[in-house]
């Protein structure tokens, strides 16, 4: 039994929950700011799970004290890229950690067609498997969703 039949990309935190409301996003950002994480906003239209580096929307916001400013940026990003995946990341710069601590998706395209398995036959009929997004296939950026 599959909990996720492939329609809804489940990358990052809270991805199995229904979409977070603005109030809930504010609470998460409040938590991140309280821990002195640098909050950044990223977007992409390539949902492949190995796509780690999304496009950055502006610089990470190191010096903000209040989530309202970050929410302003998120809404601006949603207006600019309404049909892209947008996520909020929180980077912890303490020595020894220096990595992303939180990352959750705040905007999804209206239609998420999911992934298909690509089967490649190798030498001696050996099968190699990988996945490909229906939305991407051979379309260029910006024309996928």
């Amino acid at each position: 039994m599959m909990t996720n039949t492939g329609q809804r990309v489940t990358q990052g935190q809270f991805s199995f929950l229904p979409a977070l409301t603005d109030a809930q996003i504010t609470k998460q950002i409040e938590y991140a700011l309280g821990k002195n994480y640098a909050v950044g906003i990223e977007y992409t239209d390539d949902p492949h799970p190995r796509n780690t580096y999304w496009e950055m929307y502006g610089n990470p916001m190191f010096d903000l004290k209040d989530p309202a400013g970050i929410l302003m940026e998120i809404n601006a990003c949603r207006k600019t890229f309404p049909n892209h995946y947008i996520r909020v990341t929180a980077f912890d710069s303490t020595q020894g950690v220096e990595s992303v601590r939180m990352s959750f998706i705040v905007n999804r395209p209206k239609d998420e067609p999911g992934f298909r398995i690509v089967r490649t036959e190798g030498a001696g009929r050996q099968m190699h498997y990988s996945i490909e997004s229906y939305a991407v296939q051979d379309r260029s950026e910006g024309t996928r969703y």
Partner: protein
Amino acid sequence: MDAAHPAIAGAPAGSNAPVAPRALFESSGVKALLDKLDAELIGLAPVKGRIRDVAALLLIDKLRAEQGLQSTPPSLHMSFTGNPGTGKTTVAMRMAEVLKQLGYVRKGHLVAVTRDDLVGQFIGHTAPKTKEVLKRAMGGVLFIDEAYYLYRPENERDYGQEAIEILLQVMENQRDDLVVILAGYKDRMDTFFGSNPGMASRIAHHIDFPDYSQAELMQIAQLMLGGLNYRFDADAEGAFAKYVHLRRAQPHFANARSIRNALDRIRLRHATRLFGSNEALSREQLTTLQAEDILASRVFGERSKEATHEH
């Protein structure tokens, strides 16, 4: 975001006995806050009056909320006008603290900017610059010094108007996220507001900072000296009173700032006087400023009206 003010503790919600405002005033810590303000800021009656009004509204709002009545936070954008050295920047910093303690702003930090921080140098530069500043100021107070420089109607390539537009939009739409305080000289601020009715209508509180009186300046001097661990002896106090009286009559008097400069020069003379001493200095000597440290000032010698330097 809800409009409640959670920062003030008072009668617990749902208690049956209605609390009298005076009791709530004392129990919620607002009285202590206002008393502290009274002690640390000399004079400034219009400012203290306004802060008292805001605190009173907060308390009454609490009582209204207990009765189930509507209580939306008031618009808190302000404009401070007055001569140099009258405490506009100092009060703006305190205002951020006070509003945070009253619960009207969330984080209570102050971001102080001038025109340069808001206006860009080329097309397309202004909007991101202003938005960055606004983002940093969210949850606190944005203090714009010399706000009238934003508007330069005679230069059509000036991007100040764009910054004003963005400010106006955020001041209106995100009133519970940000408090904006503009400051500057009265006549130029009046011109600025006259040509920007949108800005004028969004500023709910226009507060004028009057010049300090002789007595207030003496009190400020005592406060400053106390903070620096100095004191005047009896003669020095009299001499300083005379100094202030003479200096006020001379041009370019900058109120509290001139007092601070004068005290710095007095400290220099005090140091020079003690510098050549062959014996170890006592604590008494190190902290006491004497009349001769003050009377050496040129203010006592020259009565010339052309004197433009502080001395």
